[in-house]
């Protein structure tokens, strides 16, 4: 690509999408990391198979083979879904000899309930970048 073309593209990219009014600052969110965590929690529960597994785990801790027996999901899939749940912090893993047991971490579920309660209508969290939040 010619240098002139590249420069033109770079100049276009540098400009904001539309001039931003003074009351509304730009994107970088102060809670970017926290937001990523929250998105991961919800992603972990956005699959019917994972919800099925979670329901069985809510009773007591179980191993992969037990979950395979009760849900009928193939072992490799159970392992995959448990990994997604573990990485998001919804499920804890403990080892007993050669077997791994998985149990639900109640605190994360509490945090999710708290968040959904906080963002209910008329219950502003006060962390967005609007002028309404900065005045108070």
């Amino acid at each position, binding site marked *: 690509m010619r240098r002139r073309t590249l420069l033109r593209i770079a100049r276009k990219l540098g400009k904001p999408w539309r001039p931003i009014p003074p009351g509304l600052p730009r994107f970088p969110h102060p809670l970017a990391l926290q937001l990523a965590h929250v998105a991961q929690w919800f992603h972990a529960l956005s699959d019917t198979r994972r919800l099925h597994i979670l329901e069985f785990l809510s009773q007591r801790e179980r191993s992969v083979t037990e979950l395979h027996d*009760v849900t009928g999901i193939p072992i490799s899939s159970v392992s995959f879904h448990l990994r997604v749940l573990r990485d998001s912090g919804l499920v804890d893993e403990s080892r007993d000899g050669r077997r791994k047991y998985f149990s639900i971490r109640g605190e994360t579920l509490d945090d999710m309930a708290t968040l959904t309660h906080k963002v209910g209508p008329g219950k502003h969290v006060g962390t967005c970048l609007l002028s*309404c939040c900065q005045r108070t």
Partner: protein
Amino acid sequence: MSNASQVAHWFHALADETRIQIVEMLSHKERCVCELEQVLHIAQSRVSFHLKVLKDAGVITDRRDGRWMWYNINGAVLDQIATYTRSVKPGKHAGSCALACC
């Protein structure tokens, strides 16, 4: 109790950083796409896409006022999500599985 695919649909709608921010902003008051677009600093088409995902899952509702669409949060669905997360907590078995215990 809602079925699993409906629950998965709700959680999928909130499984994105932009959509969580949109929900957070809507919790203050109802807003139009123009405000969301300026604060999040993303293109209008993307804001509309995210709003459509949230609307399909029932997390937000919309209202037409002349040429503008106003979006508002649906408190009932958020309450149901919170209820679901409480129902699967350890020791609070939902009792709907096909095991001998149930």
